């Protein structure tokens, strides 16, 4: 867990060696058989998504009577499915509403998770107090505890205690309960990951700041936070995708007014399982944000994932 800094002088030789080895390995591994198998796996992994994406642009009649692969020989495309599923009759989803819900759920949840996680991570890595190691171990262990353990009692608390009903005739105030649930459930993992990054910072920095008379709050804000911005980005993206894609918390704590896109889509799949024109377009709507985030910020996402050990 201690920080190890590679002396920069060794880097050139290491890189040169890697390149030479890479060249030789490339010759060996680029055999046609290896490439062929890799291509097969890539195709098998991509075709289902491709079929869905293509189908979402086909007219209802075509989707229901012919396979999507026939669209190549007989192309006919439309945006009607999207219009219908986003803004149409309530029976066909009106997913635009729930898209907005997912946004309202995700953004504040991620912000609060990161803030409280960063506070806790700082307290666990750079403050000295009794019980610190025990609290750290408890938070570490809680990452793996299934959140199923918490659902029933937490829902009971929320349904017996909700003081804002009168302020809030539309019931949109209930987003609050989903935020709280997500922030609580996300706390252990976010804290643990941020702790890993923070505790790797050089202690000389903190000691120098202490000598200059800075207190913890100052060190946290002006030294630690700026240095862990990349980590905050990775973990933030990770947490964003996790909450955006969540179904369980959304189903349990969401109401008809506040449930996320995933829950609305799951309902659609349950009640209208054969309405493929809606399901394909709906699924694609729910994938757009994760795909954009993933493709544009893949580097950060992978870093979060590699650090992210045991999420579930």
């Amino acid at each position, binding site marked *: 867990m201690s920080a190890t800094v590679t002396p920069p002088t060794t880097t050139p030789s290491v890189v040169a060696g890697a390149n030479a080895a890479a060249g030789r390995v490339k010759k060996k591994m680029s055999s046609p058989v290896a490439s062929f198998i890799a291509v097969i796996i890539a195709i098998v992994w991509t075709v289902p998504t491709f079929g869905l994406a293509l189908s979402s642009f086909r007219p209802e009649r075509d989707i229901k009577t012919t396979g999507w692969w026939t669209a190549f020989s007989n192309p006919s495309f439309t945006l009607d499915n999207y219009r219908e599923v986003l803004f149409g009759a309530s029976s066909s989803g009106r997913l635009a509403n729930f898209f*907005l819900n997912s946004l309202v759920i995700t953004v504040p949840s991620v912000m609060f998770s990161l803030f409280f996680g960063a506070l806790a991570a700082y307290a666990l890595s750079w403050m000295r107090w009794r019980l610190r190691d025990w609290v750290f171990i408890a938070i570490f262990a809680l990452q793996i505890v299934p959140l*199923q353990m918490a659902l029933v009692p937490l829902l009971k608390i929320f349904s017996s205690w909700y003081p804002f009903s009168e302020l809030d005739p539309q019931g949109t105030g209930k987003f609050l309960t989903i935020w709280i649930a997500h922030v609580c459930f996300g706390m252990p993992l976010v804290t643990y990951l941020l702790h890993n990054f923070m505790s790797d910072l050089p202690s000389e920095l903190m000691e120098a700041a202490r000598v200059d008379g800075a207190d913890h709050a100052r060190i946290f804000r002006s030294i630690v936070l700026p240095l862990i911005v990349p980590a905050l980005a990775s973990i933030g993206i990770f947490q964003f995708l996790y909450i955006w894609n969540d179904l369980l918390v959304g189903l349990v704590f969401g109401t008809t*007014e506040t449930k996320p896109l995933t829950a609305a889509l799951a309902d659609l799949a349950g009640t209208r399982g054969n309405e493929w024109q809606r399901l394909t377009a709906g699924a694609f709507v729910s994938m757009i944000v994760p795909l954009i985030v993933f493709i544009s910020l893949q580097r950060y996402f992978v870093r979060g994932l590699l650090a992210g050990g045991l999420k579930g």
Partner: protein
Amino acid sequence: MENWEPKLTMLAVGIVAFVVVAGAIMLIVDNWPKRLFRDQAQIFWFIGPPVALVGFGLVYPAINTFILSFKDPNGTAWVGLDNYKWIFTDPDGLLNVRNTAIWVLLTPIISVAVGLIYALLIDKMRRESLAKIFVFLPMAISGVAAAIIWKFVFAYRANRFEQIGLLNAITKKLGFETQQWLLNAPWNTLLLIVVMIWVQAGFAMVVLSAAIKGIPNDMIEAARLDGVNAWQMFWKITLPTVRPTVVVVFVTITIGVLKVFDIVRTMTGGNYDTSVVANGMYFYAFVGNQQGWGSALAVFLFVLVTPVVLYQVRQLRRQRLEAR
């Protein structure tokens, strides 16, 4: 769009609340008087709120669930171990256990195998990062979307009609009768597992690929000078070196599989004998009015992951001791 105004207001409320809470905590710690144990107060304000959140949202409810698992569906009368007896003797309860066992036995090993093979095949290939995206992409989307994608692959039309599902189209092309794939137990469980493998293989691939790149070149060079072939290289060098990573990936996927909910719920709703523990927990606790059974299933899930928790804690303490 309906109600978009109050919803956007809530989004604003959430963001403002964030600024207020974060600002308030920072103001309090900044202005705490020196004579009132300023250092201790700062520690309290840093670790207090997160611990309170975890206590309120996880620890306290978990203890409550444990208690509820010994009570009747209304949470009033004690029923002893009846709910646990139900899991292990009633056909409905046992079904969850059996299916979860099948999931845990198959998913991690196949996901890791596919991920490792793919990572090896594309290692040092031209356009390696592009090749990764194809297998990694399912990791970014929700279980619900993944389930719909595959439901469409498994879609059924009677044999005499033109097929719209890829699997039945292939089945028919090969001369067999088309099948209602998701309705036929026990094979339908295997098809749900396919979806999970499709999602998790990308995770295994990315993490293992990073580990493969970490193998020291001297080691590969030395082995090559000794004239080992690709097969021996894999078993003697690659696999032993990345074994710790394989274990981590395997454990991570296992935990994910134990908690699998969205795929089962979206594909079949747990019907047609496909229910697993995590899905059964949701169903009995929130739909089926059997809170006792649901709680017992949650506790059972907890018991299943406990060995992993203990193992991880032991590893962590060892690491921390070494770091000292």
